[in-house]
């Protein structure tokens, strides 16, 4: 079992029903029933994607807009269920699909730290143990006790990221959230990510920025219109991607 993968994605397909096919009114429902349409207007976001990630591995996912990168990440995070195929994960998963999930402007920074960390499955004692480090990392000082509606957007991002990098997950899923704050803070985040990587966490990173993927991930996957085009060392995958789409 020592080498069983942290993430297994097996023949995963995902189809979404198109929004305009949603029945929102009674009239619409009746019209649709009369026309005898079976409502099969779907958009297939992923077509039979398979790969696995070993514990401690750092994987980048690249691809153009609408290639299914975010859908794939959301599926590993259990936000969506696959239409067919399976996704299995081992260990505590933290998905940063957007910063500051559930943070409320009326609550203080401190309260939001506890709420946000609890959303990612941290126990209260665990948050208490990390609170000092989170407050330091955010550089917010006394503002930690002020309601978040008094924060600038930069302060908001700093606090959200400070929580995010202190979650100590077994599997960390990142969706283009790295480019935050000013240069000083952005560098601090990149350093923290390298630290998380060396602590042995499995990381999956979705990004447009090839440079960032190349820096952090030895291995990459290229998605194109929901299909996996390539899986291999990042420099080779990036080269193929650039020559096709670049």
């Amino acid at each position, binding site marked *: 079992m020592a080498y069983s993968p942290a993430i297994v994605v097996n023949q995963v397909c995902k189809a*979404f*029903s198109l929004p305009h096919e*949603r029945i*929102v009114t009674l009239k619409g429902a009746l019209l649709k029933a009369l026309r005898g349409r079976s409502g099969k207007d779907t958009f297939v976001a992923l077509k039979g994607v398979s790969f696995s990630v070993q514990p401690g591995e750092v994987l980048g996912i690249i691809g153009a807009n609408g290639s299914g990168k975010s859908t794939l990440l*959301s599926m590993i*995070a*259990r*936000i*969506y*269920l696959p239409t067919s195929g399976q996704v299995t994960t081992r260990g505590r*998963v933290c*998905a940063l*699909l*957007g910063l500051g*999930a*559930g943070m*409320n402007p*009326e*609550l203080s920074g401190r*309260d939001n730290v*506890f*709420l946000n960390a*609890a*959303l*990612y*499955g941290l*126990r*209260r004692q665990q948050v208490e143990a990390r609170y000092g480090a989170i407050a330091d990392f955010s550089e917010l000082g006394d503002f930690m006790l002020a309601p978040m509606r008094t924060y600038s957007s930069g302060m908001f991002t700093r606090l959200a990221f400070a929580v995010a990098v202190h979650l100590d997950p077994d599997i960390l899923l990142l969706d283009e959230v790295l480019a935050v704050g000013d240069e000083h803070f952005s560098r601090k985040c990149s350093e923290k990510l390298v630290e998380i990587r060396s602590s042995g966490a499995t990381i999956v990173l979705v990004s447009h920025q090839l440079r960032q993927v190349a820096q952090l991930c030895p291995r990459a996957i290229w998605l194109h219109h929901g299909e996996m085009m390539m899986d291999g060392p990042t420099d080779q995958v990036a080269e193929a991607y650039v020559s096709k789409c670049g």
Partner: protein
Amino acid sequence: MNELAEVWRYRELLLNFVRRDLKIRYKNSVLGFAWSLLNPLFQILVLVIAFRYMMPVGGRNYSAKLFLAMVPWMFFAQALMDGTSCVAEQVQLIKKVYFPRLLLPLSTLCSNLVHFVLGLAVLAGFFALRHVTLEWSHVPLALGGLAIQIAFLAGLMLAASSLAVYYNDVKFMLMSLVQAWFFLSPVMLPPEMALHGLQQQMPFPQVAKAIYLLNPMAPPLIAYRTLLPHDAVGATTNDYLQVITQLVPDFMSYYAASALVAAAMLLVGFLIFRRLQWHFAELG
């Protein structure tokens, strides 16, 4: 039942959600928490003026009886309205983080329960001030009624919260429904009077009474009412349960029926929620 085990594992998040609800509810209001008590008090005052003085049908100690019915009713109505929008309002969060979706209606129910308990404390204070004597032997009946009410409410919340993500109509429908429900439930109109009226005025009195009592909220509310004595002038008994069973000999069957309906509603609500929960993130 995997869902329930998972809710247990996320119990700390549940507490966090409840704490957030309670903190946010009265943000930016000077009286803050007092509003949750002032609102029902104001309604009670209006109804007492109406039915004690303007159209004096309420009888003696109307305010105590009304208060006793209003506290659980407001809990029911408020929790149902909050519950209907609890998932729809958090779709953005659902798209970002995985957590058991059941926590959303469950935390809404819990924070409303906290308000309900505070309301009960005020009710107890009111009873103490007015030297109201309670019929302690009917406490089990009333507690059973509360269990029925909560199970029924939870089932409705589960169904409404998941359906409201798809159809906003659910919210508007429930708003009108709750209004009508208030007038047709034994809240402001004393049940013995309502039953008597149905007996005298309706073309099919037995059917009308049955419909009145098949409202799953009716037996619990009547059960709460039995905590207070019957104090009409010239009454033969002061045990309210006896008054009701004289009017409806099989009242306890209706009580049992409401328990069954509540259990069925809870199950159906849970099944609807479980079926729809994976689609919440794909909408909106």
